[in-house]
């Protein structure tokens, strides 16, 4: 189990850095005058990948992990930042240079149904990159394809078959063979086993491991399944809302996660062992929209270890939970725009569409013993919502209840050996560490 010590050997030999990513950003839209703010799919990440290693990239859907993977192989243009591949910045490559470089970096996609052209035979599909790059002679290409078929565990006679004649696992093998055709050094594997059954999954994982050894490949393995990642990766990076939350050696992340998000994510995996009554941290709500991320820490709206402002230390857990839920409700309401009629009504002071906020307040705070310094602010905010000014209500709540996590972005702190880094305010010396806080806050629920 504890093979954390053995792993570095392998990477140490091949040790040098293959890919160095600096402050990479990928934003969509938001350019024109009339467009709303841009979607910040990847919002400033820096990390490196060593030659010969497998870096796992995990996170929930919409966290930007696929966008990051696609940007690394230049399927997307980076908005800002640099990606240096073997010393060259590939974000500025174009024309022939780009085409030559592309041979080095290939991608395997999640869905083998849609990433293979149904009208081409398997042989043609695998040969296509060779044709596109004018690789040697025609017969040599043919031979290369037959070789590839055997290396991914298919048979030579499969050359003339069509993708629909294959099972999901076999189709994924075809996708892998195509990616390997030009002898790349680096492969981005975007959820390569997510669409497959467990028993088939195991075979594809084994294949990927064998191929890595045979061809000295470097992998970026993107997945939402943390168990698979633990199995195949040397190091793991965890993403949330376009930002990297934690990165370290695989075992360090799984056994000794420092970041509150990583801890919640790990605790949410259902264990295939009913006797472990592991302590699950159930996160409230869903990730916020990447169009309008929180001003402070990206994870602050759901964080189980969020730092509370000075002056509210006496407030108990249940009340804080209710405050956070209420803030979410108000935040949601402030995003909705009012109809003209409602705006007119607001002018005339007869606005009533939001009167139901009282019900929400009763729901959330009804059974709780709310201290007066909290309840007065809640009432003020509810009043503002009722007048049709949820944005003001949101600001009022922000002014009152914002803590460090809401106000500024945390730094990426080194938290242990093997370049273990974590993105959280709680690693600063002014605050209590993550573990005791999470244990205390989740134990009574």
């Amino acid at each position, binding site marked *: 189990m504890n093979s*954390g010590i053995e792993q570095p050997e392998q990477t140490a030999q091949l040790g040098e850095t293959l890919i160095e990513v600096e402050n990479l950003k990928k934003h969509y839209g938001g350019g024109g005058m009339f467009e709303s703010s841009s979607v910040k799919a990847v919002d400033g990440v820096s990390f490196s990948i060593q030659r010969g290693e497998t870096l796992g990239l995990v996170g929930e859907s919409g966290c930007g992990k696929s966008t990051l993977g696609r940007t690394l192989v230049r399927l997307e243009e980076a908005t800002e930042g640099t990606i240096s591949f073997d010393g060259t910045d590939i974000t500025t490559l174009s024309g022939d240079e780009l085409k030559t470089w592309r041979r080095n970096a290939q991608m395997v996609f999640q869905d083998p149904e849609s990433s293979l052209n149904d009208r081409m035979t398997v042989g043609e599909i695998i040969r296509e990159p060779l044709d596109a790059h004018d690789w040697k002679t025609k017969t040599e290409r043919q031979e290369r394809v037959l070789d590839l078929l055997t290396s991914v565990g298919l048979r030579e006679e499969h050359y003339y078959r069509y993708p629909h004649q294959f*099972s999901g696992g076999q189709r994924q093998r075809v996708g892998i063979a195509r990616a390997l055709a030009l002898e790349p050094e680096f492969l981005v594997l975007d959820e390569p086993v997510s669409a497959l059954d467990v028993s088939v999954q195991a075979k594809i994982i084994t294949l990927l491991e064998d191929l890595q050894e045979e061809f000295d490949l470097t992998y970026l393995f993107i997945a939402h399944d943390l168990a698979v990642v633990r199995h195949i990766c040397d190091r793991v990076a965890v993403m949330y809302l376009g930002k990297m939350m934690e990165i370290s050696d695989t075992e360090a992340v799984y056994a000794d996660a420092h970041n509150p998000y990583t801890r919640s994510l790990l605790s949410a995996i259902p264990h*295939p*062992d*009913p006797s472990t009554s592991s302590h699950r941290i159930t996160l409230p709500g*869903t990730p916020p929209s990447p169009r309008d991320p929180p001003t402070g820490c990206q994870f602050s709206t759901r964080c189980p270890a969020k730092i509370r402002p000075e002056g509210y230390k006496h407030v108990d857990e249940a009340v804080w939970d209710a405050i956070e839920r209420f803030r979410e409700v108000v935040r949601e309401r402030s995003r909705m725009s009012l109809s003209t009629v409602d705006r007119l009504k607001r002018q005339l002071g007869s606005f009533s569409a939001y009167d139901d906020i009282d019900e929400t307040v009763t729901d959330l705070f009804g059974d709780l013993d709310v201290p007066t310094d909290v309840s007065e602010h809640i009432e003020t905010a509810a009043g503002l919502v009722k007048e049709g000014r949820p944005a003001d209500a949101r600001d009022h709540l922000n002014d009152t209840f914002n803590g460090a996590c809401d106000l500024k972005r945390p730094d990426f702190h080194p938290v242990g050996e093997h370049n273990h880094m974590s993105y959280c305010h709680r690693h600063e010396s002014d605050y209590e560490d993550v573990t005791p806080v999470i244990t205390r806050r989740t134990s009574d629920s």
Partner: protein
Amino acid sequence: MSREETAESARDEGDPLLSVRNLQTVFHTDRETIRAVDDVSFDVYPGETVGIVGESGSGKSVTARSIMGLVDSPGEVLPESSIRFNGQELTAFSDAEYREVRGSGIGMVFQDPQQSLNPVYTIGNQIREALEINRDITGAQATKEATKLLESVGIPDAKRRLDEHPHEFSGGMRQRAVIAMMLACEPDLLIADEPTTALDVTIQAQILDLLKDLQEERNLAILFITHDMGVIADISDRVNVMYAGQIVEKASVENLFERPEHPYTRALIESIPGEHSRGEGLNTIEGEVPTPNAPADHCRFAPRCPQAFGACDKMAPQHIDVGETVEHTAACLLYPEDKAEGERLKHHRALAGGDDVKTEVSNDE
């Protein structure tokens, strides 16, 4: 420990809520008849969660659809099958009667919540519709009830959310809304077909917690179908493992993971990339799940089974008691374990009724 006890105590309390016996669902094609579900039997008692786990193509979803009466031509539930719900024989029901059951007794949640929701109506509209049709609640009363339902599935600001359309909900919230709609019918049994497969782990955890809470509040029986062994371990009291249209092992969830007896279950559990880290190697099962198009006169797992022997290709294994405490059976010729091979085969033949197997299997040690 405790879950095993609940599993047992639920069983002591009298009759099963759902009792499936000898369920056979076939699909007729030009070339062959595919036995998607082939002689499946199991019970669900009030208040318990029964899991069905298997790979794609094992027939778990068809089992669910057969119970709900949602198998259409070219599929057919063969007449020998029996599905008893609350004492009524569902297989004899007409379409109209079935609709009645679906509206009140059994609720179903599918993998993709988007498909269970109409994109052009608000969530509130759809819940109110369910209330009106199934419980005759209309008007302001319905709105009140709908708000309550939406709150009970953990959607904040429920009253305003009623006026939103499905596209304004996130994936997890949509699944919650579907569950709320289903609760509007006050079902006794909920069939959940991969309800969390399309969701992220943190959202999956929320939905699993929600289902457990609802079960406790309403004494709901849940038939939970999934391919994910982790989810099964988390939510079920009892598990049925399906392979190629048949149940190969039944056990309480603890027994299944602690003492898996059928070679397929063992292989399946070993191929999960669970707590292992790099370098330990994954166990794989060679070959693919076969299409069950021939009658089951043999063990369908035999071609992939590491422990298969001569007789496995020649006779169908019967469910044999392999557990000590609660009901635990495996359909495999390796059991009963304490007997010699010849004895075991005789035992299986006797269980099958004798006329199932014609080939005499030689009595070698």
